[in-house]
């Protein structure tokens, strides 16, 4: 069963995620992010069609943002209720090089 699909997008540069992102599927995103992180710059994660995300994905985001440091930033685009809740509770919106965009 495919529970997560990851698509590389050029404009805006980043990934489009669809489905459910958890401990079992977070590795796919980590792999897809690797090259983008190496290049640096702004990375847009379109999460509008992501139905679910758990704390393992938040941990990946935090690690990635730390790795990027001042070389780049991440834009979380179109988060739904469930994701906004997770972002708020875990304080992701306080990380300087992360932008949450409606």
């Amino acid at each position, binding site marked *: 069963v495919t*529970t997560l699909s990851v698509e590389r997008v050029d404009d805006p540069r980043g990934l489009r995620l669809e489905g459910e992102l958890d401990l079992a599927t977070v590795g796919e995103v980590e792999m897809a992010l690797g090259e983008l992180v190496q290049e640096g710059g702004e990375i847009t994660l379109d999460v509008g069609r992501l139905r679910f995300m758990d*704390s393992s994905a938040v941990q990946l985001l935090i690690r990635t943002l730390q790795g990027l440091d001042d070389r780049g930033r991440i834009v979380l685009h179109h988060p739904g209720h469930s994701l906004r809740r997770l972002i708020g509770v875990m304080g992701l919106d306080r990380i300087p090089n992360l932008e949450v965009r409606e």
Partner: protein
Amino acid sequence: VNRSSERARFDRTFPAVPESLFDIRDHVRGLAGRAGLSERAMEDLVLAVSEASANAVVHSGSPTVRIRWVLRDDGVEVEVADDGVFRNRVRVPSVEGAGGFGIPLMAALSDEISIVEGTGRRPGTTVRLVKRNQ
């Protein structure tokens, strides 16, 4: 714990592997829909149960994780239980997940949370989450 308001309970056991998390959420969504929880309450509960289950999968060494669904007069209660018989469980922090986010996250998403750590005689950890009807 006041169990006098319990109306029904339903247990289901899943293999303690990461791939079960999707099935566990699916299971909880189905039950929550029938219990009449609001969409937002359901999403909170699904995330909390998924986090508790992830902890059981990663940390317990248990072969299975049991999801107990309890329908109460004032809402629902979900117990996530493992029986980590292969590893010595010591303290509550072992439930916190790799980044230590688990407990604060589950607490923020639930109206009530309790965690019972197993003992040598009665191994396994049970996380109990309550979501009340608004």
